[in-house]
């Protein structure tokens, strides 16, 4: 735990450092475009083989964008990222582990 928050250090939590409105609009447009790409991948049959990993990747990218900029986690003290990551990592691990147990292992005969 080297991420030690000392009392007097206000690690850049001041509000005026936030980006401008047009920046947010750009992020919004990117999000919409990525969504469009996702849906396109869904409809294009040639993509079927890579569909699942690609879609997961793209939606992960969207999630990261929202978290970093809309929720400006990027601008908050590092500690908040740790807290949030704890939840995300464990939840992802759980989903993954259960998927493996239910959908992958049976293919190897348990």
């Amino acid at each position: 735990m080297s991420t030690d928050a000392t009392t007097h250090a206000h690690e850049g939590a001041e509000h005026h450092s936030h980006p401008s409105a047009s920046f947010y609009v750009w992020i919004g447009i990117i999000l919409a475009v990525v969504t469009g790409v996702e849906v396109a991948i869904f409809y294009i049959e040639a993509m079927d083989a890579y569909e699942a990993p690609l879609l997961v990747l793209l939606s992960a990218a969207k999630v990261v964008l929202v978290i970093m900029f809309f929720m400006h986690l990027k601008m908050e003290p590092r500690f908040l990222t740790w807290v949030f990551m704890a939840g995300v990592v464990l939840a992802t691990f759980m989903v993954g582990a259960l998927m493996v147990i239910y959908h992958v292992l049976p293919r190897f005969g348990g």
Partner: protein
Amino acid sequence: MSTIGLETPVGREAPAHHEEDTGVWSWITTVDHKRIAIMYFVAATFFFFIAGAKALVIRAQLMFPGQSLITPELYNQFFTMHGTTMIFLVAMPMAVAFFNYLIPLQIGARDVAFPRLNALAFWIFLFGGIYINSSFLFGAAPHASWVGYATLTSPEFSPGQNTNFWLIGLSILGIASIMGGVNFITTIINMRAPGMKLMRMPLFTWMTLVTSFLLITAVPVIGVALIFLGFDRLFGTVFFQPGGGGDPVLWQHLFWIFGHPEVYILVLPAFGVISDVIPTFSKKPLFGYPIVVYAGILIGFIGWGVWSHHMFTVGLGPIADSFFVAATMIIAIPTGVKIFNWLATMWGGSLKFTTAMLFCIGLLAVFTVGGLSGIMHASAPVNLQQHDSYFVVAHFHYVIVGAAMMGLWAGLYYWFPKVRGRFLDETLGKWHFWTTMVGFNLTFFPMHFAGLFGMPRRIYTYSAELNVDIYNQLSTVGAFIFGISSVIMVWNIVKSWRSGEPASANPWGAATLEWATPSPPHHYNFPRIPTVRSREPLWHKQEREEVLAVTMPEPEEEPVMPNPSYWPIVLAGAITLSWALVMTGVWWIIALGMLPVILAMFMWAFEPAFPEGHGH
């Protein structure tokens, strides 16, 4: 190096110039973390006796083969409620009592981050506990064990309200746990005194932080599982109904994804306690502090990836089994590291065998036994013999009672003088300790044999053919001795509360910040917030003087503390009620039940948290 503080400031003789209210109403409306802590402790002890009494009936029933003191149905209700109560209403809230009292004091804060939320969590816990136990009045106590496996809990095999009481009760308690977790994480992250870096925090605070993380991450999982179960029972979903394609084993996954972190929720606070107590009575700082901290974090983290060791007999297949064997066994390493660091702390120290210290030593001795039987369980093939036998019952009582509870009792003897300004009686304390050790080992050691010789758990009677009577008899005798030890403990508390020997501010010569306040502390804890410069602020002469100069004098003007409020208790009542109405399974009644909750939340939001002119 440092000298250890023996010239400690004396206790507070005269009451603070601000006379505190002591009436019942003042307790009901309190938002003071110290009072809430005391209420947690009292409630948990109360439930301990209720659940312990059930354990005694269980033991009496099992004393001889083929007995029928109670009916099988009642037996099932008793062991179910024994387990449920002990885990959710005794071990967890008792730890939370310690969190509440100590965290603000240890990190140099005046209260927790959200005082009213804190009160709310307490009342929800209390009402939830009363609710789930009230099932006995309706003859409908939960009867499907504390793990509530599907399909035994499906409407078909558990008609009636028994299981509804269980699942609704647990979800109410879950709300309180998550609130507590959020509150303590925020408090610890955000409210430390100047200089109280993470790596200067007392170990107890550290373990509270880890435990709180486990709470906020593990409890939602069982929360959702309970929602599924409730929907299966009340609204006809098929989550765990094999006829509709549902898999009962999924319940087990979800339960244990919560359940295993849960066992570390039980034990980590105790590890925190003894990591604070042992250094004090060894007159030595904790050996390998950062390692002990990391080991605790690691235990919490790895604890997330081992849940299926409760499911080796379920038939997950060899690959999954192997993974969970390895993951589970790895936990032995950080746990062992902790044990060796405690031993090393004592090594070369100057050990004083107060009751608190005796409980720590007892913990080290018996927890190792329980941990090692855990390692045996963790070997999947061996587990196929031991699972659901009394060997497991032996294992988990050795770790829960022998570590989680003993650790908290160590804490009780250690911090009681802070809470009350009086010592617990040491003679009674020693009686408590030794009767506990004898009773505990006599109860649970023979269970290893009963299990090895093939006695399954959760049976209301057993055949004389099994030849395990002698072990059961020893267990029963031990349980009653253990019962006596618990009575001694309560007697000691009651007696010393009234007439214990007065204690000074830092009677044990301890190192951490809570001892820099008078015993008992002001309701605002610290007149001014001290600045901390090391891990043992009270053990370094110069730092001690600085800290005490800030924390001991009566302030000219008292710090402003949050208003008392009755909305927490009202809201908690409304939440419990609205949850209980789910039992009806009628959607509009459930919806109506939400009204008082919304109303109470509204009133809460608009009540000023602080006296006039002090809010923002």
